[in-house]
């Protein structure tokens, strides 16, 4: 057995200030998340400048707590990892600057990690047997990717969204039907009592790109439906709208995923990202995988949301490949998956 590798990971790409200590990329020794949801709720979404300010306030106590819950001090860790993109540039910069300074002062290597690679790697934490290759559907507030995970840190993107991310569509529709922010969990909750077949919303296909997604048309269809109800004086059943919208999203995600499973012949499928917590998506995807005879993986909800444990998991595989960053590591808000 090789030496144990303990990584202190930091994540500040959006509205969660998070730090974690991860052992050998698979075992979470601590996972601290300080959410800013309350701060942003009155604005109906994440305000980048406020998020950046809050990260600066929160970051040291969050890191301190992560080390303390892991029962160690800075000198015990082997490397520092940090999300350097994609995300809100101001928010990313807080984590990147802090992580680099800690690494420099403590004489530890610094590893810049791609946020989506983190989400995908969240699956390694609770599924010790999961190894590439596998297919992964990454769905969150900022991303919708269907990805072939060829090896650790090696990806081929099959499909991506052409406009809104799935989670973004959830947020926008939730706002339109008066559920507020954050939209994903709220739509998920009210949909449980709604009729998902009440309204037939469109399932968009992108011409010439069989794995790509498009959710802005669906969002517009919901808004049009709400407008026309209002004009006709018809009663809007929020639960039905939410459930029908959610089903339209889930149908497309599952259909594309099943298509990819069949075409690639991959035997393992994983969900990742904030929307992977959506109960309808989980159930539908699990059933689809069972039907296709494919093993289904998904992280627990706490590892689906933005967190640093997933960054520590991804960083481990970069670290053992020798992929460490320099002190000039910068935040890259539009960083592409598979780029370094």
């Amino acid at each position, binding site marked *: 057995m090789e030496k144990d590798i303990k990584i202190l990971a930091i994540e500040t790409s959006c509205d969660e200030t998070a730090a974690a200590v991860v052992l050998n990329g698979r075992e979470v020794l601590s996972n601290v998340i300080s959410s800013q949801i309350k701060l942003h709720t009155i604005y109906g979404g994440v305000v980048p400048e406020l998020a*950046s*300010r809050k990260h600066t306030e929160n*970051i040291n106590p969050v890191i301190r707590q992560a080390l303390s819950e892991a029962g160690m001090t800075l000198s015990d860790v082997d490397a520092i990892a940090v999300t350097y993109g994609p995300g809100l540039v101001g928010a990313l*910069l807080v984590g990147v600057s802090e992580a680099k*300074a800690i690494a*420099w002062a403590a004489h530890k290597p610094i590893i810049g990690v791609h946020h989506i690679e983190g989400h995908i790697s969240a699956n390694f934490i609770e599924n010790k047997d999961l190894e590439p290759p596998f297919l992964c559907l990454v769905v969150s507030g900022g991303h919708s990717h269907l990805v072939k995970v060829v090896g650790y840190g090696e990806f081929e993107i099959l499909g991506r969204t052409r406009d809104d991310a799935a989670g973004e569509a959830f947020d926008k529709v939730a706002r339109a039907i008066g559920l507020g922010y954050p939209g994903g969990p709220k739509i998920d909750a009210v949909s449980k009592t709604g009729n998902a077949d009440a309204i037939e919303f469109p399932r968009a296909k992108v011409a010439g790109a069989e794995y790509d997604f498009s959710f802005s048309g669906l969002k517009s269809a919901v808004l049009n439906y709400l407008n026309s109800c209002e004009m006709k004086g018809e009663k809007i059943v929020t639960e039905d709208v939410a459930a029908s919208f959610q089903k339209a999203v889930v149908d497309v995600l599952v259909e594309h995923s099943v298509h990819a499973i069949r075409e690639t012949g991959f035997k393992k499928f994983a969900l990742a990202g904030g929307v992977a917590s959506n109960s309808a998506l989980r159930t539908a995807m699990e059933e689809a995988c069972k039907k296709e005879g494919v093993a289904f993986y998904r992280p627990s909800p706490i590892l689906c949301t933005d967190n640093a444990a997933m960054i520590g998991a991804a960083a481990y595989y970069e670290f053992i490949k020798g992929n460490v960053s320099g002190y000039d590591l910068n935040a890259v808000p539009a960083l592409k998956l598979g780029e370094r």
Partner: protein
Amino acid sequence: MKLIGIDSSGMTASVAILEDDIVVAQYSVNHKKTHSQTLLPMLDEISRMTELDISTVDAIAISKGPGSFTGLRIGSATAKGLGFALDIPIVEVFTTDALAYNLCGTDKLVCPIMDARREQVYTGLYEFVKNDDIYMMETVLPASALAVEDIVARINEIGREVVFLGDGVPVYRDTVKNIITVPYSWASPNQNRQSAASVAALAAGKFKNGEFVNADAHVPEYLRLSQAERERKEKLARE
């Protein structure tokens, strides 16, 4: 006593190492490249060049604001990370105070002006008073966000000769010329921008007086709300 000074509040990225009465090293760059790419490599460079044993550093001196929000946070997060890892405190200095301190010893009034957009400057007014055999800086007007017309009006009222410096000078030179009624001058190129040596030198006095904060507690001093907060406040005030 050993301090690391940092200023990334504007276009200038500047780091310095101060040991007692000597600036052991200073590295300043005025270039468009982002501070997150330059600041730590610069600190790494001067530390290696001067064989700094970082475990002997007593505190981090930071230019806490006002300034570019993002620039301030890069500096602050760097300072907080250093403070955390080395378990040392942070000495906070207003950006305008440190800028004024570039001209320590002048008998003129000193007025830093930093371009704050939205037709304002981050500014302040300072003077130097001799105390025994050294000059001490006194604050006449603390760091503020003001229209350049307002700060010049204040200077006219005081009626003393003034030296201007900072990145607001090229932006507001003509405006100042048109409305100022007292003798004035512009600071020279070697003194007219943020300097981490000034931050550290000013911080040294504070550190000796016990004026420092824990690295966890340090946050920038923006002097301004975010746009979203401001608009929300305005909206609520209208309703």
